[in-house]
C-alpha cells in the first residue's frame, strides 16, 4: 500500500488543482470560523437580547469542537471535488487503463483511490483539529476533550463525501459530467432531505410517532446530520414539534452507506471494461 500511495503522490503533487483546492479548503476553514468569531463578538455580543439567547462563547472548549467542525464541514465539498477531478482525469487521460496494463491490479487501482479518499479525510480533519485548538486556546478557556466526538463525525462526513466523489467519477468517467452530477446530487439530496424532514414533522404531529429526521437517513445527510449548529439554543423550545436527532441510527446509516459505496465501487471497477 505504501508503494501505491507513493505512486499516487507522484500523480497528485504536481497537479495545480490539488494545490489550489487544498489551499482553498485550509483558508476556507480558518476564514469561516474567524467570521463566526467576529460576528459573535462584534454583533451578537453587542445586542442585549441576543446575549441572553446565545450566551457563552462558541469558541470556548468544549463548544469549540462543535463550532469548528460544523462550519468547516461546509468546505468538505472542496476535497470531494478534487477527488472527482483526480479520478475523472484518470479516465479522461485513459491512464487508468495504462496503470492496469503496466501491472496494477484493478483492485489495487481502486484500493489506492479509496486510501487517498481516507488520507484527504484525515488531512481535512487534521486541519480542523488544529483550527479548533488555535481558536480554543485564543478564547482563553481551558483545554477539554469533551465534545471531541464532533471531530469523529467530521471525519465520517469527509469520508462519506470523498467516497461518493470516487463512486460518481467511476460511474460517469467524465470530469465535467462527474462534477455536474456531484453538485446536482448534493442539491437533489438536500431538497429530498428537506421534504422528508417536513414529513417527519407531520408524522410526529399527526400520529405522535417520532422516527427522527427522516432526511438524515439519506447518504450525504446521514453524515451531515451528525454535525449540528452550535447556535441550536432553540431546540429545547421546539422539542415537541421537531423530530429527535436519533444520532445512533444516523451514525449507523452513515457507516452502512460507506460500506455500500465501497462495494458498489468495487463491483464497478472489477467487472467493467476500462
Amino acid at each position, binding site marked *: 500500500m505504501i*508503494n501505491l500511495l*507513493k*505512486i499516487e503522490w*507522484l*500523480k497528485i503533487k*504536481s*497537479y*495545480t488543482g490539488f494545490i489550489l483546492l487544498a489551499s482553498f479548503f485550509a483558508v476556507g476553514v480558518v476564514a469561516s470560523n474567524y467570521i463566526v468569531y467576529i460576528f459573535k463578538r462584534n454583533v451578537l455580543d453587542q445586542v442585549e437580547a441576543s446575549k441572553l439567547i446565545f450566551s457563552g462563547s462558541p469558541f470556548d472548549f468544549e463548544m469549540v469542537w462543535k463550532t469548528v467542525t460544523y462550519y468547516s464541514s461546509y468546505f468538505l465539498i472542496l476535497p470531494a471535488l478534487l477527488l472527482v477531478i483526480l479520478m475523472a*482525469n484518470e479516465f479522461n*487521460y*485513459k*491512464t487508468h*487503463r*495504462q*496503470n*492496469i*496494463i*503496466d*501491472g*496494477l*491490479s*484493478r483492485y*489495487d487501482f481502486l484500493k489506492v483511490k479509496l486510501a487517498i479518499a481516507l488520507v484527504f479525510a484525515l488531512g481535512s480533519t487534521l486541519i480542523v483539529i488544529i483550527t479548533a485548538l488555535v481558536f480554543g486556546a485564543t478564547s482563553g478557556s481551558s483545554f477539554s476533550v469533551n465534545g471531541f466526538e464532533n471531530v469523529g463525525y467530521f471525519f465520517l462526513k469527509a469520508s462519506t463525501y470523498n467516497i461518493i466523489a470516487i463512486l460518481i467519477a467511476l460511474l460517469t468517467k467524465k470530469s465535467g459530467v462527474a462534477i455536474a452530477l456531484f453538485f446536482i446530487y448534493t442539491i437533489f439530496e438536500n431538497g429530498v432531505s428537506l421534504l422528508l424532514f417536513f414529513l417527519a414533522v407531520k408524522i410526529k404531529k399527526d400520529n405522535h410517532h417520532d422516527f427522527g429526521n427522516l432526511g438524515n437517513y439519506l447518504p450525504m445527510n446521514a453524515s451531515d446530520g451528525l454535525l449540528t449548529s452550535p447556535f441550536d439554543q432553540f431546540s429545547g423550545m421546539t422539542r415537541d414539534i421537531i423530530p429527535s436527532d436519533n444520532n445512533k441510527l444516523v451514525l449507523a446509516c452513515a457507516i452502512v452507506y460507506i460500506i455500500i459505496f465501497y462495494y458498489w465501487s468495487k463491483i464497478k471497477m472489477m*467487472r*467493467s*471494461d*476500462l
Partner: protein
Amino acid sequence: MVILCIENLTKNYKAVKALDSVSFSVPAKTVFGILGPNGSGKTTLLGIVMDVIKASGGTYNWAGNSGEANDFRKKIGTLLETPNFYHYLSAEKNLQIAAKIKGRGEADIEKVLKIVNLYERKNSKFNTFSLGMKQRLAIASALLGDPDILVFDEPTNGLDPAGIAEIRELIKKLYIGGKTIIMASHILDEVEKVCTHVAIIQKGILKSVGSVSDLMNLSTVSTNILIELSATDNTALKNILQQLDGVLSITAFGNDLHINCIESITGEKLNRFCFENGISLNKLHVKRTTLETRFLEITGKQSDK
C-alpha cells in the same frame, strides 16, 4: 515455449461480436503480427489479454500464468491503442510513475528516453508533445525495465516516415536481441517488413495464423510472379506475351498490362523477348506475391464498413 495462449476468446458488445472464438498461440522469440482491417477486433483482443477489457468467453494465459496475472503484466512492455499519460506531468515524471508500477528502478528512464530521441524533452509536459512524440514516449515507457515481451498496438501510428523507419528498426533489433514482440497493425507493409508470424483477423474471426513464410506459401498465387508492364501498343504487346511459355494470365489494368507468370520468367527474359519481337517496353515492374496479395485473398477485397 508459448508466451501467450488464447483459447476461444469471445467478446460481445450487445449484438456485435467483436471477437468470435479466437484461438492461437504466440511462440517465444518471434515478432507476432496481428493483422486486420480497422474494427476487426485487434485492439479488443489485446485489451482482453492486458485485462482492461473483460472477455465474454474463452481464456488466455501468459506463459502459463492464467487469468489476470497482474505480476506477469509488470514484465510486459505495452503500448495499447493510444499513448496514455498524465497531461500535466513531464515525460520523465510520467515514466517515473510507470517504472514504480512495474516495480522497476528509475535508472532506465534516461536510457529509454534516449532510445526514442526524447531525452532533450524529458522535462517538457506531455500536453506539449506532438502526436509522434507522444507515441515515442509510449514506446519508451514500454521499454522500461528491458522486458522480454513487448505488446505494440499500431506502434507507428502518428509517426513521420523517419520515425516509422526508426521504430521498425527498433522492433527488428529487439527481435534479434531475443525479445518476443506482439504487434497489432492494419498496415500490411509494416507487418510484412517486421513480423515473423502473423494472425489475420477479420470481423472478429481468426482467418489465418502461422509464420509469414508459411502463410505466403499457402497462397494460391504465391508461387507466381506478378509483372506490370506497358508499351506504346499494348494490344500488340498482349499478342506477343500470349506466345511466351509460362505466362498464365494477362489482364489490362489502366495503361498497363498485368501478367501472372511462373517464377522462372525474369524481368530480363521478358524484356529481351519483347525486344526480339519488335516491341520496346516503356514500363517493366516485377512484383513478387506480397502479404497484401495473400491478405486480400483471405479477407476479400472490400473494406469492413
